[in-house]
């Protein structure tokens, strides 16, 4: 059985382009609830709602069509991906609800059971209680979770609070979109496939816990908009922008080959269309195909003061989290410099 054969897009590549979303949300306003700290009008990873002086609810939802054929692994990836937005805000996950679309006639019950088991395993690892969910019959399978966490609102990591003189740390390699295209073309190497599966199935839990011991300026997780797309959101603060050093950006095996072969997800082109105007510097096709590759369950992208960056990197690596310094903060607000 091939789960991905039932889908047109996969993983976060199925996401609507950022330009489309901005247009759809443009002009939508809701009452100014006093407890509301962050909603859809910003570009935070999750919504924030104050419960008390030192506690806020963090909520986010993410679901998508299968990105791998193994249903258990897909469930795990779907949960890891949903939880990632909570970790990106420095929040502690507490509860989850499942969202399931399943073609029962075409696939039967077994893969659904395996998906939910994989999802539950990841939620359990996160210490996040599954409360329930909702399922519908759908020709295209999809799975995801609405997850809730808690955070001290004064200590929550925002994604656009960069300060000059910082360093950017990334905790997972990029290229899951390209590997997925290569898998669909039955052309991904076993090494690329294994590396992509491992990285997508890994929770950002340990990375977030280690980073919590450091003075994080800003943090986001790299998902559907690609590294450059999410970096552009980070650069939207009023203090400064950032720069990404291509030579330092970690890549999954062989993704440059896949890009050269034209195995580029449609999401890459949508991301490029929506966000290219915020990029400066070396905008070669080779760079853009990697920088806008939609990531599923990508890593955390965190900004720290330069003096703390090496220590944070060492602490992450000591905890078993692969991590790289991929750039620095600075330059004009609103722009991502590619060097």
């Amino acid at each position, binding site marked *: 059985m091939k789960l991905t054969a039932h889908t047109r897009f996969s993983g976060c590549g199925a996401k609507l382009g950022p330009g489309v979303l901005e247009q759809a949300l443009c002009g939508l306003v809701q009452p100014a609830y006093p407890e509301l700290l962050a909603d859809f009008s910003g570009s935070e990873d999750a919504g924030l709602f104050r419960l008390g002086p030192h506690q806020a609810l963090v909520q986010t939802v993410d679901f998508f069509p299968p990105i791998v054929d193994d249903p258990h692994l897909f469930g795990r990836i779907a949960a890891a991906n949903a939880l990632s937005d909570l970790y990106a805000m420095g929040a502690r996950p507490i509860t989850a609800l499942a969202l399931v679309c399943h073609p029962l006639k075409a696939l039967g019950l077994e893969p659904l059971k395996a998906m939910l088991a994989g999802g539950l395993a990841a939620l359990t690892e996160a210490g996040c209680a599954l409360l329930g969910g909702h399922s519908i019959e759908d020709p295209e399978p999809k799975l995801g979770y609405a997850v809730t966490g808690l955070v001290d609102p004064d200590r929550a990591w925002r994604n656009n609070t960069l300060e000059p003189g910082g360093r950017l740390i990334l905790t997972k390699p990029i290229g899951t979109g390209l590997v997925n295209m290569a898998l669909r073309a039955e052309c991904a190497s076993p090494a690329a496939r294994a590396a992509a599966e491992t990285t997508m199935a890994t929770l950002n839990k340990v990375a977030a816990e280690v980073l919590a011991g450091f003075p994080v300026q800003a943090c986001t997780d790299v998902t559907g908009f690609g590294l450059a797309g999410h970096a552009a959101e980070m650069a939207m603060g009023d203090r400064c922008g950032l720069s990404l050093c291509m030579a330092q950006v970690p890549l999954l095996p062989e993704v440059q080959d896949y890009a050269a072969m034209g195995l580029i997800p449609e999401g890459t*082109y949508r991301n490029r269309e929506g966000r290219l105007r915020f990029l400066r510097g070396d905008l070669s096709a080779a760079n853009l195909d990697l920088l806008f590759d939609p990531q599923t369950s990508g890593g955390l992208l965190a900004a720290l003061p330069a003096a703390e960056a090496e220590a944070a990197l060492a602490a992450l690596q000591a905890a078993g989290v692969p991590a790289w310094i991929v750039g620095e903060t600075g330059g004009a607000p609103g722009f991502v410099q590619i060097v």
Partner: protein
Amino acid sequence: MSPTCRRLDARGLPCPQPVILARKALAEGGFDTLEITVDEAASRENLLKFGAYAKCLVEAVDEGGGLARICLTPQGSAPAPALAEVCPLPEGVPGVGPAEVVLLSADGIGQGDPELARLLMRGFIYTLTEAELVPRRLLLMNSGVRLAVEGSESLANLQKLETRGVEVLACGTCLEFFGLTSRLAVGGMTNMYEIAGHLMEGPTLSLG
């Protein structure tokens, strides 16, 4: 001989299907230029990249309305060897039916009333143009070659099949026998050596 072109219709196909189809066609060869019609900007860009990667001469003809024809002309005798190494060809590319080759050995289907046979053949070819799965090749032999000449009532449908990526090949000996060689209006001419090769290389459906 004038340059031959194989046409593929990749409209409406999600990435990476257009690239997969192009790769399979290049590996098979048997043409000078491969022309792929796409209707997505992403597919257009990806095919341009793929063409350069496969060491083809690449040309894009934009037809307006997002429609584009990408022409890939392989340079040298074989597609880039690295291609097969990096990426062996997948089995069963969608869009191609289990019958790789359909052999039409008459201009009608079955014996008996010739009028009924003619209607059945016309209907079969039309139905193929609407079918989800098409064969890789249509081989025309004996009076089947009449289907592909000027004035044939199936000519437009055969041309349509060609744009969907079906290679239409008419038996040269047969065309000559009927004195129709100069009136062939769709596809290419072939000989018994090639026909025998095509018939033996995969599942074949024979009608006529």
